[in-house]
């Protein structure tokens, strides 16, 4: 029997959500972690994408390029817009048909809505918002299980969860917790058209209207450079300075929750456990103490510069480089020197 | 909703030590009492050093210890630590009088003790109304007949109100029992941290045998940077409660931030090793009324009495506050019961409260210590020169090996007189004696 590792390929209006690629990367990693078992048993594995929507063949191809060997696709007008019931029923149907071992879903708004319903109708376990996934041994169980690690109690505790007697082992993962794998334009895979009939009672809720939110264009999660401000700004106007530095660096503005709670900036900018998980190439933390809940959201950034007046601020524990100083002095000076450099080189 | 007005026999404002005690005593007599507390729960807004004193607790519930109170460690060692800039002299006592049965003082965490203390009162029949702020009084013919709260349809009636609102005594001021705002020279701001450490580390570092042993320490000297104030250290089961309290006017004058003062204390070379690797669990700031007798309000008026911190009932030198609050709460309650018996709630009957209190340690001590806060404000040398001298003197005495001892004593003597002429020092001592005996 094939040991199937499934990834839900989230899409919206003809675009694949980047978290799907990240999960395909993880799924391939997980498969490599059971190589020893496969060798012993002679079993096969496959990493498969589950795609539901309308006119989504291009997305199927994209998913293959990010590492899916096979795509199960339900392509029908009934799935044009996401709705919990029909999507959940469709996925449940597919799982029952193919019995995958692991099923990963992005912990996006859509994914969280969907995963809880699917896991419940399958009567299996689901671990939410995982920050680490691996295949490993649990107690004396012969086969490796999915060891899903996640924060609990507001990030103060880290717990590893297993689902030992039920399949599939399901987990959701927030965007940007894992890296995007390399895309292979030449990759080939199989696309299986699946059938699913939407019954009228599944359509009790209908989308009447969609109002686009322009703030949502911010796309903090996928920015390369983020300059974040926290409570240390002292007042809402401080974000003007943050924006200035962000513009100078070509980045976007992020924030801590304290700044959001203070009403200084919109929630869309919040980085952290209950905000966005980011992994930019450069993260500048200004006046942010570095509470655990903030750190978990940004510690995967490639380069972290922290500016804080308190030499003992925990943010320095995750920083690549720290500046002990007043952000109101340091940032203007940075802008000045950056401009001078630009002037010199142009 | 019913249009019946909310009517009780007695209203208590504030579910702190004073309030929950008053409520228990009133309820025990069979009267209907409501306790109105602004916090989510009794204790949620309260915190202190600190230690509770057994005599007061047993006075309210003779079976206190059988009720499984949430206490931390008993105080089996207590006294002063005198800090110089880089040294410390310990003057603590253990065994002997301190090893009484039951032990005289127990360390407690208010967030746990206050809800429990309130529960005991609730079991007596008191009704607690949390999450509600008392904003003003209801009057009839200039007599208090109830309170207003910040909730819609929030009036509550009772012929007598016991105000136990704590140090920030806005209601007491509103009633005109006191004519001033918090006097900043008479109020101290205490900042403290609760630092968690494994019990075995606490015991090892402080020389305690086990969790049945605990410390209550007043710290004098370098901790207050010469300002009138004290530091403290109390041991809970798994944490150290450490803080500094300094008068507000000194803070204002020096522009020193209380938090920096606390940080300095915790980084002191004799203190830092004690808390090494500890984790900050809680940080907080709270006012302490230190005026005592000098800021004592009028304690009663028609239909109302005031008890506890709200009435400046704190003896700052001995860290006595909770026991005064409990004792005063009880006396106010007894007076309210008497008023109900007489069906007379006028100031004339409620004057019985003051008479009762006069017979207790509360007013006796406050009166005796009435000169204390002025004394400390005028004698900063007790906060820096003498603790430092003590450190030098003992330090020199125990290192003067090979030195002619005559010269040693001269050196020691000079280390005092260099800082404070002898006559002045003698004067200081006399003044201290006067302040403490109240003569």
């Amino acid at each position, binding site marked *: 029997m094939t040991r199937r590792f499934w990834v839900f390929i989230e899409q919206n209006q003809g675009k694949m959500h980047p978290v799907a690629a990240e999960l395909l990367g993880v799924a391939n990693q997980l498969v490599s972690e059971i190589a020893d078992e496969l060798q012993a048993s002679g079993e096969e594995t496959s990493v498969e994408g589950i795609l539901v929507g309308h006119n989504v063949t291009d997305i199927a191809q994209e998913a293959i390029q990010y590492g899916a060997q096979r795509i199960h696709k339900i392509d029908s007008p009934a799935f044009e817009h996401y709705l919990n019931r029909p999507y959940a029923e469709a996925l449940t149907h597919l799982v029952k048909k193919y019995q995958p071992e692991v099923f990963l879903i992005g912990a996006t708004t859509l994914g969280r809505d969907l995963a809880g319903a699917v896991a419940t109708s399958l009567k299996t376990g689901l671990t939410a918002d995982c920050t680490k996934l691996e295949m490993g041994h649990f107690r004396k169980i012969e086969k490796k299980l999915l060891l899903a690690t996640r924060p609990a109690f507001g990030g103060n505790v880290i717990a590893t969860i297993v689902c030992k007697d039920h399949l599939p082992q399901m987990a959701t993962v927030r965007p940007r917790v894992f890296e995007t794998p390399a895309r292979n334009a030449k990759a080939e895979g199989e696309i299986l058209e699946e059938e699913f009939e939407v019954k009228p009672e599944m359509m009790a809720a209908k989308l009447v209207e969609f109002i686009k*939110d322009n703030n949502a264009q911010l796309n903090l999660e996928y920015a390369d450079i983020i300059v974040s401000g926290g409570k240390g700004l002292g007042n809402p106007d401080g974000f003007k300075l943050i924006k200035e530095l962000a513009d100078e660096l070509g980045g976007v503005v992020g924030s801590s929750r304290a700044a959001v709670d203070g009403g200084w900036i919109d929630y869309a900018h919040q980085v952290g456990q209950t905000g966005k998980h980011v992994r930019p190439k450069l993260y500048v933390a200004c006046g942010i103490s570095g509470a655990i809940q903030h750190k978990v959201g940004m510690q995967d950034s490639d380069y972290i510069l922290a500016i804080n007046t308190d030499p003992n601020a925990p943010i320095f524990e995750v*920083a690549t480089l720290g500046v002990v100083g007043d952000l109101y002095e340091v940032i203007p000076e940075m802008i000045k020197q950056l401009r001078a450099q630009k002037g010199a080189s142009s | 909703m019913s249009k019946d007005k909310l009517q009780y026999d007695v209203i208590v404002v504030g579910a702190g030590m004073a309030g929950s005690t008053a409520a228990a005593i009133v309820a025990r007599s069979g009267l209907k009492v409501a306790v109105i507390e602004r916090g989510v729960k009794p204790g949620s807004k309260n915190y202190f050093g600190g230690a509770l004193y057994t005599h007061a607790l047993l006075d309210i519930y003779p079976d206190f210890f059988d009720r499984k109170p949430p206490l931390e460690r008993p105080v089996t060692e207590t006294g002063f630590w005198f800090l110089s800039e880089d040294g410390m002299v310990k003057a603590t006592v253990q065994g002997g009088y301190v090893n009484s049965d039951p032990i005289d003082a127990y360390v407690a965490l208010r967030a746990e003790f206050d809800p429990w203390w309130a529960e005991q009162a609730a079991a007596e029949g008191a009704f607690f109304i949390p999450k509600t702020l008392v904003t003003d009084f209801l009057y009839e013919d200039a007599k208090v007949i109830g309170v207003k709260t910040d909730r819609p349809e929030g009036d509550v009636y009772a012929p007598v109100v016991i105000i136990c609102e704590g140090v920030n005594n806005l209601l007491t001021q509103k009633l005109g029992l006191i004519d001033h705002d918090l006097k900043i020279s008479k109020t101290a701001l205490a900042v403290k941290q609760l630092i968690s450490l494994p019990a075995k580390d606490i015991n090892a570092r402080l020389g305690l045998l086990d969790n049945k042993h605990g410390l209550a320490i007043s710290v004098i000297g370098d901790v207050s940077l010469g300002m009138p104030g004290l530091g403290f250290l109390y041991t809970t089961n798994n944490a150290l409660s450490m803080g500094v309290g300094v008068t507000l006017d000194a803070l204002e004058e020096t522009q020193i931030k209380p938090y920096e003062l606390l940080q300095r204390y915790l980084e002191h070379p004799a203190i830092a090793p004690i808390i090494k690797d500890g984790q900050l669990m809680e940080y907080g700031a709270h006012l302490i009324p230190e005026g005592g007798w000098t800021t004592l309000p009028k304690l009663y008026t028609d239909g109302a009495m005031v008890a506890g911190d709200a009435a400046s009932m704190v003896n700052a030198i001995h860290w006595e506050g909770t026991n005064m609050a409990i004792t005063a709460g009880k006396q106010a309650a007894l007076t309210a019961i008497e008023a109900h018996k007489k069906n007379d709630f006028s100031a004339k009957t409620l004057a019985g409260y003051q008479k009762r209190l006069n017979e207790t340690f509360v007013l006796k001590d406050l009166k005796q210590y009435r000169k204390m806060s002025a004394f400390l404000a005028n004698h900063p040398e007790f906060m820096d020169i003498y603790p430092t001298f003590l450190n030098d003197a003992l330090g020199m005495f125990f290192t003067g090996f090979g030195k002619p001892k005559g010269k040693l004593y001269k050196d020691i003597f000079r280390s005092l007189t260099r800082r404070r002429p002898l006559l002045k020092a003698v004067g200081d001592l006399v003044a201290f004696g006067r302040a403490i005996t109240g003569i």
Partner: protein
Amino acid sequence: MIHLLASIKQVPDTTNIRIDPETGSMIRKGVPAILNPYDAHAVAAAAEWKRKLDGKLTVITMGPPAAKEALQECIEMGADRAILISDRKFAGSDTLATSYVLAEAIRKIDQDDPVDLVFFGKQAIDGDTAQVGPGAAIRLGLPLITYAVEISEINVDEKYAVIVRKTESGKEIIQTSLPAALTAEKAIAEIPYAALPDLITSLKFIPEVWSADEPLAYDENQIGLSGSPTMVAKSGTPEAHEPAETISVAEQGLSGAVEIILGKMLSNSSVASLLEELK
């Protein structure tokens, strides 16, 4: 008459959590238990609509006896009936088992007094899973609207509701037939400040208590530890890191310090190439 139902949970206030440095587990002592904030807003919305439509509001929770306080808070906001589902046998329930317990209870309540709209919070702040609402809804076969930020309309006669939900890209206006279920964001309603008589009523209120056997006989294989497919393999505190290299403005002077940090940052090739692109 419309019948609204809210499913609520009492949680430790995670903003106040302390961890035992020795065992790495949470110190429950002294941590206040609160009504899950999202649930509080859900109940506030439900209470608002029950008043508007002159209907009825029932709240339920599965939890220890102390969870009674959370139910009392719902009564304070305007709930008419409160049920505490409490039994040692439920201990250790994960989200799957919890959704079973709640769904069966809702089914039972619905038999006697049909329920039109079920309110859940978006998520409980202790576990942050956001799974129980969707799980219970699918068990009950109800259409589900997650992340609801507004209820624009509830039409009792024609049995439909219009609900606004928030997604990453904007707002969706959803029309659903009733009965239905939703999970609430905080924006769905403000928490009201109850009148004093309502507060007093709630303080004296004693909820109905249901056990695992009465009035509903739960299948023991679906509750508690045996009904929970997931289990905690291990738990601990997040690992600590070594502090980074720091440059002090006080020591290096302002322009000196900034020069050093920019220099160091630009010696990192990936940062340098990013900034290069800018020019």
